[in-house]
């Protein structure tokens, strides 16, 4: 499990983690939030997004999925996406976790959590990071269908 922590002015922090093994997003969230002792009483809003693997895609039943990434560039892109979102809204802390490797239906793929004083910033930054991640972070999904056939996912859904 590879993890990067960045501590930057003006006091905004973030943690970005690429997980080669399954992770429990609620547990990760709880553990991470407990570590934020310096922020206790300062965040009024936490916005969270969890992406999980669906068992159907484009009308086909999916048995498993392999998530490939470009090591190094992934972390760099995620850091840029987070930094860019944080420049537009005032937030206190960001956590991004993303799976790679073999996943099965219902497995968590991604967790994005944003802590801020007020709700607008938390919502906006959380969504901006998810959209940025989906369009810029070098991850690729290959699906294994229920008949054993494999195919690359060509394009993320808009949204």
């Amino acid at each position, binding site marked *: 499990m590879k993890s990067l922590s960045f501590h930057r002015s003006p006091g905004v922090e973030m943690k970005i983690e690429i997980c080669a093994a399954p992770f429990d997003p609620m547990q990760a969230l709880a553990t991470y939030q407990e570590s934020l002792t310096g922020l206790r009483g300062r965040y009024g809003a936490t916005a969270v997004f969890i992406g999980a693997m669906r068992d159907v895609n484009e009308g086909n039943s999916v048995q498993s999925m392999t998530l490939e*990434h*470009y090591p190094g560039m992934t972390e760099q892109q995620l850091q840029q996406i987070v930094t860019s979102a944080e420049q537009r809204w005032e937030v206190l802390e960001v956590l991004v976790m*993303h799976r790679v490797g073999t996943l099965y239906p219902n497995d968590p793929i*991604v967790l994005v959590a944003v802590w801020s004083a007020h709700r607008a910033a938390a919502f906006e930054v959380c969504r901006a990071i998810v959209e940025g991640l989906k369009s*810029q972070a*070098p991850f*690729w999904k290959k699906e294994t269908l229920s008949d054993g056939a494999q195919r*690359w996912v060509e394009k993320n859904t808009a949204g």
Partner: protein
Amino acid sequence: MAIHVNYFASLRDRLGRSEDTLPAGEGLTVATVWSRLWPDRPLPPMILTAVNQEYRNLNHPVEDGDEVAFFPPVTGG
């Protein structure tokens, strides 16, 4: 040194390999890196390109020691 080239995902599968090495040269760009390695195969449409792990377009200069990557649209998250 040299130029190190990476291919990912469906592009790597189609090319049948994940990396290449190319000697550095004068005036190289992302586009000419591709055409030297694959003279008989035009760069497929929709392929994204990066130099040293940053997105760069086809005209971006490539220098000795650079890492160049070619890959299809990303589908994470």
